[in-house]
């Protein structure tokens, strides 16, 4: 193992502040384990929560982590006659260290799913699951996303199953009452996968390169904007398609991913989710209602709508939009368009809650109906503006794109702003007063963002300052 090389790869990917954060989080995990030693207990009704949480974090890790290459790696580092395996191992270990941040968010399950005596073993399980995920992410990275999903989705189901039925044969089983089986499976699987990655690692950058240099793509059907007014064109842009951009550069080759989907596809997806969500409550014990609703609230009503607005700045082209019209008009219309697009996604879930209220008669569902209607779209607007101010990632095919780990301050500020908003949304499930005040507060907050010329001008200035083209 070439330690100097590992240090170099690590240094060129993350700041030392980020690494300190990682080590603080590792330390906190140990603190959790000590707490769990004294208060830990096995609570069966929380198994689904534990399994879902691990499955969700794993999905993120397998989909997003893996080797973290930069243009300068292909321009310079890979041109140096270094040992291929040393190089790939350095990248692999770096990926594990960077992704360790995810694990902190699942470590608190130690507190309520483990018997006190096994809390420290739980730390090993969590780390082993991370290693499994990163290894798979590394192996699968060379395949297109659709192919990867064929492997990832069954794997995630395998992770969730122990939360639903008594199933000892999954890495997650360590947290659902099958400590020995779960730990054994995690350790064996992580060992085998690491062995595979280490043996094959020398070839991974080149196979990844081949994948990245494949070119795409003609669209099947042009969306026509001809004859539309300004307002209609912007709304049409947001209501007909969803898109995102990410990039990978290697030497003289540039690969820009610009996937886009029809909004109707998200409607179909949300219809499927709404059916699953609605049916689930007919089989759930009442004691589980709140746990599922908090998850529903976090992902469907807060995270997805917020991320949709937040990530929009990375695809923005100020030299075109802002030169065509005043920024306050453009940002305002764009935020409204994105918010309406979120509204389309939420319609089936809103209907699902209404049906649940009518059939089951629990007041909780009418609350969720109101929260989904009121908060979901507003979170997209808020996300759009916070993204404009603090999301420093603008993706073009030019210049170096730094990873999220290099924007810790922006991320922290985003979380600081987002935290009270999430708190309001969660508390509003339990307290009617918070629900009423929360709706009014979020409405005032988002409308002041949309309407204030000053805020829109400041957002434009911040984006220009960061060389948004």
């Amino acid at each position, binding site marked *: 193992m070439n330690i100097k090389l590992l240090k170099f790869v690590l240094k060129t990917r993350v700041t030392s502040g980020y690494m300190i954060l990682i080590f603080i989080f590792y330390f906190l995990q140990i603190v959790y384990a000590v707490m769990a030693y004294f208060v830990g207990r096995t609570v069966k009704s929380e198994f689904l929560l534990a399994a879902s949480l691990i499955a969700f974090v794993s999905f993120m890790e397998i989909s997003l982590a893996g080797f973290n290459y930069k243009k300068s790696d292909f321009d310079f580092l890979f041109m140096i006659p270094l040992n291929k395996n040393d190089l790939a191992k350095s990248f692999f270990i770096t990926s594990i260290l960077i992704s360790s941040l995810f694990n902190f968010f699942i470590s608190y399950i130690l507190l309520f799913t483990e018997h006190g005596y096994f809390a420290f073993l739980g730390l090993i399980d969590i780390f082993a699951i991370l290693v499994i995920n990163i290894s798979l992410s590394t192996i699968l990275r060379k395949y297109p996303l659709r192919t990867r999903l064929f492997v990832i989705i069954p794997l995630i189901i395998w992770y969730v199953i122990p939360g639903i039925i008594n199933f000892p044969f999954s890495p997650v089983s360590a947290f659902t009452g099958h400590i020995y089986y779960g730990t054994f499976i995690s350790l064996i699987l992580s060992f085998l996968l690491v062995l595979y990655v280490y043996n094959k690692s020398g070839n991974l950058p080149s196979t990844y390169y081949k994948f990245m240099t494949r*070119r795409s*793509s003609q669209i099947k059907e042009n*969306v026509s904007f001809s004859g539309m*007014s300004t307002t209609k064109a912007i709304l049409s842009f947001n209501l007909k398609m969803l898109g995102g*951009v990410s990039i990978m550069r290697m030497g003289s080759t540039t690969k*820009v991913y610009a996937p886009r989907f029809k909004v109707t596809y998200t409607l179909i997806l949300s219809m499927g989710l709404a059916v699953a969500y609605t049916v689930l409550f007919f089989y759930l014990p009442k004691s589980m209602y709140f746990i599922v609703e908090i998850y529903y609230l976090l992902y469907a009503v807060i995270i997805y709508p917020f991320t949709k607005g937040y990530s929009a700045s990375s695809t923005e*082209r100020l030299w075109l939009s802002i030169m065509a019209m005043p920024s306050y008009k453009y940002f305002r219309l764009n935020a409204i368009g994105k918010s309406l697009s979120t509204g389309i996604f939420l319609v089936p879930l809103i209907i699902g809650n209404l049906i649940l209220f009518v059939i089951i008669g629990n007041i909780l569902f009418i609350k969720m109906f109101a929260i989904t209607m009121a908060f979901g779209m507003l979170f997209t607007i808020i996300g759009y503006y916070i993204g404009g101010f603090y999301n420093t990632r603008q993706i073009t095919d030019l210049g170096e794109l730094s990873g999220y780990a290099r924007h810790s301050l922006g991320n922290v500020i985003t979380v600081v702003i987002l935290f009270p908003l999430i708190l309001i949304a969660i508390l509003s499930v339990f307290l009617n007063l918070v629900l009423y005040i929360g709706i009014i507060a979020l409405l005032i907050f988002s409308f002041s963002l949309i309407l204030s010329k000053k805020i829109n001008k400041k957002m434009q200035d911040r984006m220009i300052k960061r060389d948004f083209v």
Partner: protein
Amino acid sequence: MYCIDFNNIKKYFGNNVALNDLTININCGESISLIGPNGAGKSTTIKILAGLLEPDSGDVLISGYKPNTEEAKKIIGYLPEDASPYLTLSVRENLEYLGALRGIDDLNYKTDFFLDFLKLREYERNKVSSLSRGNRQKLSLALAIMHEPKVLLLDEPLNYLDIPSQEDVIKYFKKMNSTFLVSTHIMSIAERFTDNVIIINKGQKIWEGEIKQLKNRGEEENASMEAVISEIMGGL
């Protein structure tokens, strides 16, 4: 009245002076190249003229309007260096979307014209993310000029273009009868666009005149035009 009226502009980025009392006045219909070494303040000048940056002091007017007004936006055509259109949209969608945002009449005709003129017809359904750099630059040029601006602010407009495309674009620009400010650090490009040149360095104007004058001086000193410019730039 000047079409580009840029008077005593100062611009700071923190403690660094980007523009130091810079004045550029261009008559309507006139074309001028802005030349300078890296970091001279060319892009900052163009961004201030486009209304994307505000000066710390001084006055800027575009045909009598402040740059960040709707009236000015209607008459300005701005092409930044390494411009990038919307990557998730196709070539045709970019033209139509921006045409709609600008409220261009006869948009279908204009779209078809630029697709053919810039030889982008075969890529009209391609997402911009899959285009070559040259084709992306052609599309960016079309997006900057499709509303027939009276004042064109172009930052390295010929980057990545093949030679026939460069010739076509220059011919088209010359027919436009607009006011041009072309920023470049390549003298041969400046020469193909304009007869006049302004040389700036460290945010200050250090020379203004006809390209012919630079050529003559080169002949007198038995030096290339680039060597003459290099000498002028080093003279501050």
